[in-house]
């Protein structure tokens, strides 16, 4: 029973990681930029989720508003911060991204206050007893369900529509996709919108699980997501999803069995180092 509980916890955590890291890997695949500020969009999503839920009482509306608003902010980040730097070496954009991330943490502190926010009345607090002795919180069920639905819709669109196929081609080789008439500028905006919206949904879900958002909640997410996209194989979407789930499960089990030896957050990097020693290109990357 303990194994099953840990496995489910791992899947819950892995679902959150997948939503965050997918946006990061999409941006890397298309622009070869490590978009550290992506974690700030995750935090912004959390804040919008809590505020809209507290104002309207609707968590569904909060998810929708957070996804749309943060998606638009993500496109603005591309337009203002990255587009002028595309002709520069990638580390310039990385520095800009780090600066943006640090500045956003301070901005959250100024706008929303230094102590964080909680739900006035936390939604989905109950649980469901799946079988005797095994209970799953509604919030955890929502995390898994929403991740499956959102990622399935994205997967369907990217596999079965001409725009989705062109989008995947652009992530693999933008200049060659352009040679066949794909409008790369539109794809970049779409990538930032979708990636940022996913991060926002993750932010709302984390806020729901913890009943708390704070200015620095993106810090751990930023380095975990970086570890995940390297682990999966930079720019590889399937690799990112696999790495997210593996890391979630390893953290869940690791916390119980080797938690006295190594911190939970350090597990990600320990696992990353071991995998990279065996497969330097990541789990599903190509040499």
């Amino acid at each position, binding site marked *: 029973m303990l194994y099953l509980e840990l496995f489910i916890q791992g899947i819950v955590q892995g679902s959150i990681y997948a939503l965050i890291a997918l946006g990061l890997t999409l941006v890397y695949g298309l622009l070869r930029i490590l978009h550290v500020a992506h974690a700030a969009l995750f935090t912004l999503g959390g804040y919008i989720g809590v505020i809209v839920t507290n104002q309207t009482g609707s968590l569904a509306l909060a998810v929708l508003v957070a996804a749309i608003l943060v998606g638009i902010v993500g496109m603005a980040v591309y337009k203002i911060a990255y587009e002028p730097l595309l002709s520069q070496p990638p580390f310039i954009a990385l520095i800009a991204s780090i600066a943006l991330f640090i500045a956003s943490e301070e901005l959250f502190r100024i706008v929303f206050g230094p102590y964080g926010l909680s739900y006035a009345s936390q939604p989905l607090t109950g649980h469901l007893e799946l079988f005797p002795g095994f209970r799953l919180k509604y919030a955890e069920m929502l995390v898994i369900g929403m991740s499956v639905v959102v990622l399935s819709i994205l997967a369907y669109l990217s596999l079965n529509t001409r725009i989705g*196929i*062109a989008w*995947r*081609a652009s992530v693999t080789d933008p*200049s060659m*996709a*352009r040679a*066949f*008439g794909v409008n790369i500028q539109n794809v970049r905006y779409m990538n930032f919108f979708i990636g940022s919206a996913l991060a926002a949904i993750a932010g709302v879900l984390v806020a729901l699980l913890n009943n708390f958002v704070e200015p620095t909640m993106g810090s751990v997410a930023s380095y975990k997501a970086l570890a995940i996209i390297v682990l999966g194989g930079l720019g590889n979407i399937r690799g990112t999803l696999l790495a997210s789930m593996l890391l979630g499960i390893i953290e869940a089990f690791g916390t119980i069995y080797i938690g006295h030896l190594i911190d939970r957050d350090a597990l990600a990097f320990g696992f990353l180092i071991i995998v990279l020693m065996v497969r330097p290109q990541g789990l599903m990357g190509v040499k």
Partner: protein
Amino acid sequence: MLKVTGLTAGYGELIAVRDFSFSVEKGEILALLGANGAGKSSTLLSLMGLIKQKSGTIIADSADISKLTPEARIRHGIAIVPEGRRIFPDLSVLENLIVGGHTVSKSKLDHGINTVFGYFQRLKERSGQLAGSLSGGEQQMLAIGRALISEPKLLLVDELSLGLMPKIVDECYAVLQQLNRNGTAIILVEQNTERALAVADNVCILEAGNLNFTGSIAEAQKDSRILHSFLGQE
């Protein structure tokens, strides 16, 4: 079909091809020859709108396409088979062809895919397979097929034979010649000069970004300087 006047293009400050003028007629094969770094591939990329054109004009069927995007140039009937094939390895064979037809209607896409499968039966057999898992020859077939989906009037082909078995090269050239007989103009960049000269009508020879010779194959073969220096013939 295509008339290029004073084309100068390059990467940033670097000029790869300078003041290059030439023309290609319907149903003609023009071989673009020269040593590595002579500006052959850059010329093709520039015609496709993929690298910056600094000056000059490109007229396709009376329309000035010099400032148009690659998407618009495809609509004017130009398509490219790039050096190194550059297929999308994470996409299936069929998906690569779908990207090749990104600018065309669904019915034209379906027709194009059937036509390509007619040319390359092997692609049809492997339509669901990831392109990255194909052999080098099959990848080249896919690169050609991908360019054919938009039914180009002018096909830009860069280093078709590079690294391929002679049998595969024969197969690819047979398709190009068949297309050419149907009226498609082809600009062919080849290190294998013998192969290029065997199929081309005319030749341009570039040296360090400048046009060194232009004329028919017969004229090139009469010129002893060209024969010795560029075509490797005695």
